[in-house]
């Protein structure tokens, strides 16, 4: 087995670590015994990096709420426990959070929430610092990997000292930035054991009401902790025209842009250290709050009646990532100076094509969306995963995407709320295996319970595809890669109330059968589920076959194969043809990129003149793998 540097590095070693890796190391060093998460960009790698550590139980949970509940249970058992999620994950988990904050903890309970500031792979941009205010919880905000490591470790102490869950708020530029970290030694912790205490662990109204004053008292104690926290750092500066108050990665951009101005760097950002801030404000002419993304600190400062003007989102954007390029012109303009223009070489070319993410060559979803794009009179309720790309070119076969599992409820709503113009439309829902298990099952139950007329396409590729092919109950393997019971989707949807004869399993590469099955099921006014059963091409059990090629003489340029959307099919020549009826049509002659083709045999099924054939095997065999 390869040496795992993150796991084996002795105390004092300096490593180049991403925020996610630094978190994993810190969680382990803290003596954490249980850690759970559902994959989600940009947080996924935390649990992946934590899994190989010894003496810690780690799991992929089916969704974020369950992962938090597992962590809560472990905390009640007296173990230090941990859970990680992307920002939208907390929307799912918050039901548990908002009451556990009343009940408190036994073993330290730390939650990392990774905000996808800048939308690298998310459906919205949320500022998770709001949970601190909402849930009366401390928020720590690291600015780089070293701080992520230190704050994650400290979060466990804070959690136990103040009897509260603690949130470490990360962003994409923390999770995925690598920087130097000095790692330390593991603290040995044992589980204290579960001690029944109905007044705390049974949150019936009476008990919860009695806990409330304790939570408010905790707010006061946390305020003092924040005032004294070593994570709130005052950096003096000679140019006192502006005093910056900043947190997270924004600190780095500000410090780089204005090295000589006083700065208050906040790491313990909820509750705010208002006395520290007040003292700081007396040393400067005005304050500029630089934070990602919402004006949370700024809002509280505005209410604090400081004696100097406060700027923030009046000059800086309240969305997307900040960077020196964004901050500098805004601040310079406030100072009344002209920003030094950086000479930028503009290339003379016209604007380049965009390169949006695409489905992979031979992806089993290609056949599904090729087929859906050819079924008329349907509305398609989509979900979150690789198949969300089905909304794009060339398929344009997905009409809605909102949140994990929403394809089910939205489909039912489209059915029940249909207007006159939709009277002849069938409602189709498309959802992946992991998303179905995450939040889709309940929605399907609602469809069957309420006799909805929805055809569900359950795309079972046995992986959480978009985040990199993680395991889930549909893959039959756990986070460690060990075998575990694999959910039987046909039985599951039957158990949820779908009639056995309305459950079909289809190979998505068999286009005629897939088309026939969808056509048949949308006509029947009952819930039905079509399961496509071919695995993601990026996971290790996918078997690659010999590539296909195009016989130039036979290709008529009809472009049908391009509607599959496979990135291995490339246009060699375009043209026009006038049909006998006088209609002019575009022609596109194609070739197949041998290195990218995995021989899935999908595109030949779209080619009427049979121009796509297996590539003759080279005599000496294939040498493309090293």
């Amino acid at each position, binding site marked *: 087995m390869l040496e795992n540097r993150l796991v084996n590095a002795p105390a004092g070693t300096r490593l180049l670590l991403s925020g996610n890796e630094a978190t994993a190391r810190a969680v382990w060093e803290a003596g954490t015994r249980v850690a759970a998460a559902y994959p989600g960009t940009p947080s996924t790698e935390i649990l992946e990096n934590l899994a190989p550590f010894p003496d810690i139980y780690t799991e992929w949970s089916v969704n974020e709420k369950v992962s938090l509940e597992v962590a809560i249970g472990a905390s009640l058992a007296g173990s230090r426990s941990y859970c990680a999620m992307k920002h939208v994950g907390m929307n799912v988990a918050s039901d548990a959070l908002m009451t556990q904050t009343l009940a408190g903890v036994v073993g330290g309970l730390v939650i990392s929430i990774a905000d996808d500031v800048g939308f690298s792979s998310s459906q919205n941009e949320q500022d998770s610092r709001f949970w601190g205010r909402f849930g009366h919880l401390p928020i720590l905000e690291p600015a780089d990997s070293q701080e992520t490591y230190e704050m994650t470790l400290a979060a466990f102490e804070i959690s136990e000292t103040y009897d509260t869950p603690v949130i470490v708020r990360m962003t994409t*530029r923390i999770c995925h930035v690598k920087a*130097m970290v000095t790692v330390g030694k593991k603290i040995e912790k044992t589980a204290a054991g579960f001690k029944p205490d109905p007044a705390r662990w049974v949150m019936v109204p009476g008990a919860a009401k009695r806990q409330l004053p304790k939570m408010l008292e905790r707010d006061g104690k946390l305020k003092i902790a924040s005032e004294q926290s070593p994570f709130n750092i005052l950096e003096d500066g000679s140019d006192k025209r502006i005093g910056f108050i900043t947190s997270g990665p924004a600190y780095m951009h500000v410090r780089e842009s204005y090295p000589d101005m006083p700065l208050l760097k906040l790491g313990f950002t909820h509750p705010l250290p208002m006395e520290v801030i007040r003292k700081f404000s007396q040393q400067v002419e005005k304050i500029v709050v630089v934070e990602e993304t919402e004006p949370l600190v700024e809002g509280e400062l505005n209410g604090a009646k400081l004696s100097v003007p406060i700027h923030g989102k009046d000059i800086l954007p309240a969305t997307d990532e900040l960077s020196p390029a964004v901050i500098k012109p805004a601040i310079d303009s406030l100072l009344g100076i002209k920003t030094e223009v950086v000479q930028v*070489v503009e290339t003379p070319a016209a604007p*380049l094509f965009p390169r949006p993410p695409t489905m992979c060559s031979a992806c089993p979803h290609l056949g599904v969306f090729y087929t859906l794009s050819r079924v008329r009179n349907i509305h398609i309720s989509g979900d979150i995963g690789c198949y969300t790309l089905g909304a794009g070119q060339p398929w344009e076969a997905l009409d809605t995407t909102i949140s994990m599992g929403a394809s089910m409820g939205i489909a039912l709503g489209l059915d029940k709320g249909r207007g006159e113009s939709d009277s002849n439309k069938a409602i189709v829902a498309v959802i992946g295996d992991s998303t179905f298990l995450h939040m889709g099952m309940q929605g399907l139950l609602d469809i069957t319970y309420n006799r909805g007329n929805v055809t569900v396409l359950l795309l079972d590729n046995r992986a959480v595809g978009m985040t990199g092919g993680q395991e889930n109950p549909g893959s039959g393997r756990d986070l460690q890669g060990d075998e575990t019971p694999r959910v039987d989707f046909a039985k599951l949807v039957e158990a949820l109330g779908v009639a056995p004869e309305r459950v079909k399993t289809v190979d998505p590469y068999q286009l005629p059968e897939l088309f026939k099955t969808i056509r048949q099921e949308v006509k029947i006014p009952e819930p039905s589920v079509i399961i496509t059963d071919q695995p993601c091409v990026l996971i290790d059990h996918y078997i690659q076959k010999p590539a296909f090629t195009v016989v130039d003489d036979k290709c008529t340029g009809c472009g049908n194969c391009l509607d599959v*959307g496979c990135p291995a099919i490339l246009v060699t020549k375009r043209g026009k043809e006038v049909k006998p009826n006088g209609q002019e049509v575009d022609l596109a002659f194609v070739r197949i990129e041998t290195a990218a083709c995995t021989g899935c045999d999908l595109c030949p099924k779209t080619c009427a003149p049979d121009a796509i054939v297996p590539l003759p095997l080279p005599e000496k065999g294939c040498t493309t793998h*090293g």
Partner: protein
Amino acid sequence: MDDKTTNILVVGIGGLGVMTAAEILAEAAINQGYDVKKTEVAGMAQRGGVVSSHVRFGKKVLSPVITKGTADFLIGFEAAESLRWTPYLRPNGVALVNDMKIVPPVVSVGLYDYPTNPVDEIYKSGLSVTAFDAGAVANDLGNPKLVNTVMLGAVSDKLPFPAEVLKSCILDRFRAKKPKLVTLNDTAFETGRRIAAEKSGG
């Protein structure tokens, strides 16, 4: 060590080895005692989207992000992506480009055009560019995955530390993971280095 921070932008699309190349550059800089930060935006990179990886090193690096007009080096793993990121180079910066074209489906379905010769456009901007088909070089050496090592070899003599430092970082990785490929990568590195030297000289 001077106070200047060196900015290297490595760009391409998912699956070409952009992030690995950036990682190796970062490791080499660490070995030279620099403070290093490396960041990328690649949320859905596995799906053929644009990947850009920023490597910054110096005495002390604060922001991990390279802004427009400030990159000292642009290492482009694909022709059009190199053109896309050219405005990030500073006017005297160095561009090293793999002149390999990967056409996305949006072009195949006829929505957009792929520029006829992206590298020509970069030349026209007056920047110092070294371009060659590193993919073809890698194929000639018998393994398309060598493109990464060929590219790093090609940039190695222009960096603020000796080429040998970068090379040993690459070879150490292979020694640990795939010892059989050490010699082949050594050859790939030196081939890239030689081609770049010839191109710059001529």
